[in-house]
């Protein structure tokens, strides 16, 4: 069995035996990959002095799946399913980050409504991420009820996401140059219901946790880090905002339509676990407020009653008609696709996709209806073609749930990306973890690691 040796073992301090021939030796402990109290697979080799951690060597890489190597083998839109699995707790933010990086490289812009749809979906995804993080941290400190409540609230949000994208977790919703489908009808009402439930759960959890003596004792002044150290280690997101430095990519370098939506950024003072918990709880409220204002400000969707393209045809029937060449029957029709793909017909296209023909698939009606659509579809899906950005490189930062999530895309003009680099936010936080753990008790490691919100997929890629 291959054991990964590391430097700490050689430096186990065996002091020379004193007068009575007794020697002191440090206790080396594996707080290892499959640890019950840690919802993430890292290995901490801790040199213990009784209950106190003297030195902690954090080892990661147990979920390295080669995202960057795989993204060089598939085409630009083929990388989107891999980006879901980076930060799999808030997958929509990764999709959006990657697609905006490639759009920046292509130099194309997305219609206003598509920006709003992306902002709405990524904010819902951020709320589900914070729910999972705070719930798991509370569970590890013994508050199992809060975990059950928060996962229940997350189920409501996942139903929302499933209504729009068709899947709960691995949604693959964004495309280079747009999104797969528009928001379905009645989305605003479903959203307000889900948020009402989520807000009741947040109030209950707040009542259960914030002034709870055990929770407060475990979370106050543990895992503290100062603002300068945090910036020096490259930490961003709720972790940095808890220390007092108010850096939020949505505010400092606004993208999509974040500059048109008023929201404020919660900032902590002490930078310990309790502040991170409070910042995350407040950010959930802010994200829900963003979604509500965005739903009010969103520009008009497709004009549903449209005499020219009013005739709905089931998609399967349209394909059969096209196969037998009966173009007349389907020209001017509007394909009715499955419930989760409601918003992907031609009516919706001008509002959710870029008008650059060489970057986005045509609507189904155009593919079967006319030759231009057919050529556009052919040119985009046959291998050797597809989305082909010019030679170049582009870095696009997005505010992920754990901090600044950046995608650096290099293209050499071929159909697949030459190099896709993900700047994972929790990588920087994990590099500072060992300094936060040293000197603390073993019991303090659990809330600290919980509030780091390490996501294996994003950390090890």
């Amino acid at each position, binding site marked *: *069995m291959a*054991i990964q040796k590391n430097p700490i073992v050689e430096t186990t301090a065996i002091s020379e035996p004193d007068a009575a021939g007794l020697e002191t*030796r440090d206790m080396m402990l*594996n707080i*290892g*990959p499959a640890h019950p109290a840690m919802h993430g697979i890292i290995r901490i080799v801790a040199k213990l002095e*009784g*209950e*106190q951690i003297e030195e902690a060597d954090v080892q990661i890489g147990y979920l390295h799946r080669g995202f960057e190597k795989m993204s060089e083998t598939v085409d630009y839109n083929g990388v989107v399913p891999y980006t879901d699995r980076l930060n799999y707790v808030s997958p929509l933010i990764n999709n959006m980050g990657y697609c905006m990086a490639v759009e920046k490289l292509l130099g194309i812009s997305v219609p206003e409504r598509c920006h709003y749809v992306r902002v709405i979906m990524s904010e819902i995804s951020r709320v589900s991420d914070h729910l999972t993080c705070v719930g798991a941290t509370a569970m590890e400190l013994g508050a199992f009820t809060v975990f059950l409540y928060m996962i229940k609230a997350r189920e409501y949000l996942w139903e929302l996401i499933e209504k729009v994208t068709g899947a709960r977790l691995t949604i693959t919703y964004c495309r280079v140059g747009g999104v797969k489908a528009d928001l379905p009808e009645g989305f605003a009402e479903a959203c307000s219901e889900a948020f009402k439930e989520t807000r009741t759960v947040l109030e209950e959890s707040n009542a259960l946790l914030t002034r709870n003596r055990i929770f407060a004792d475990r979370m106050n002044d543990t895992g503290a880090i100062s603002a300068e150290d945090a910036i020096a280690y490259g930490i961003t997101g709720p972790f940095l905002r808890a220390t007092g430095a108010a850096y939020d990519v949505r505010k400092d370098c606004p993208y999509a339509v974040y500059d048109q939506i008023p929201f404020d950024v919660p900032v902590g003072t002490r930078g310990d676990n309790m502040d991170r918990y409070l910042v995350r709880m407040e950010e959930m409220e802010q994200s829900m407020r963003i979604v509500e204002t965005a739903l009010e400000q969103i520009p008009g969707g497709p004009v549903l009653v449209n005499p020219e393209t009013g005739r709905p045809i089931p998609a399967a029937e349209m394909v059969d008609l096209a196969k037998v060449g009966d173009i007349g029957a389907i020209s001017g029709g509007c394909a009715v696709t499955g419930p989760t793909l409601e918003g992907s017909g031609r009516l919706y296209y001008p509002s959710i996709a870029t008008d650059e023909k060489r970057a986005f698939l045509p609507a189904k009606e155009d593919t079967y209806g006319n030759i231009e659509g057919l050529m556009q579809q052919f040119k985009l899906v046959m291998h050797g073609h597809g989305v082909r950005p010019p030679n170049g490189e582009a870095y696009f930062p997005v505010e992920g749930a754990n901090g600044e999530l950046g995608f650096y895309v290099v293209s050499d003009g071929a159909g697949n990306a030459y190099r896709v680099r993900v700047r994972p936010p929790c990588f920087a936080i994990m590099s500072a973890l060992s300094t936060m753990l040293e000197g603390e*008790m073993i019991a303090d490691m659990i809330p600290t690691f919980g509030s780091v919100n390490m996501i294996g997929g994003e950390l090890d890629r």
Partner: protein
Amino acid sequence: MNEYIGIAVMFLLAGGLAGLMVWLGSVLGKKNPTPEKLGPFECGQEPFSLPMGRLAVKFYLTAILFILFDVELVFLYPWAVLYRRLGYVGLVEMGVFLAILMVGYVYARDNGALDWK
């Protein structure tokens, strides 16, 4: 004398039942000891150093303080049973007893025996 018989029967029953279950478990259970299974579980890794009885001195100090105040607690039980009959005399005596031990507790706490660092 006869109430002690009750206690003895209770101990016998409890001990017997527990022993029976442990014995049945060891007899009926399948034994398949492999070297990995006998090794300690340390999150799926080979442990660096088996503790072999090496403990930090601080554990010892905490344990002694616990025993001291636990024994003090044991004296309270009989006193609580006879609380009514002892009247004020008993109350004052137990108050003095507790005060003396409180002095010890305050001394230990101020000298930092309780906080770990």
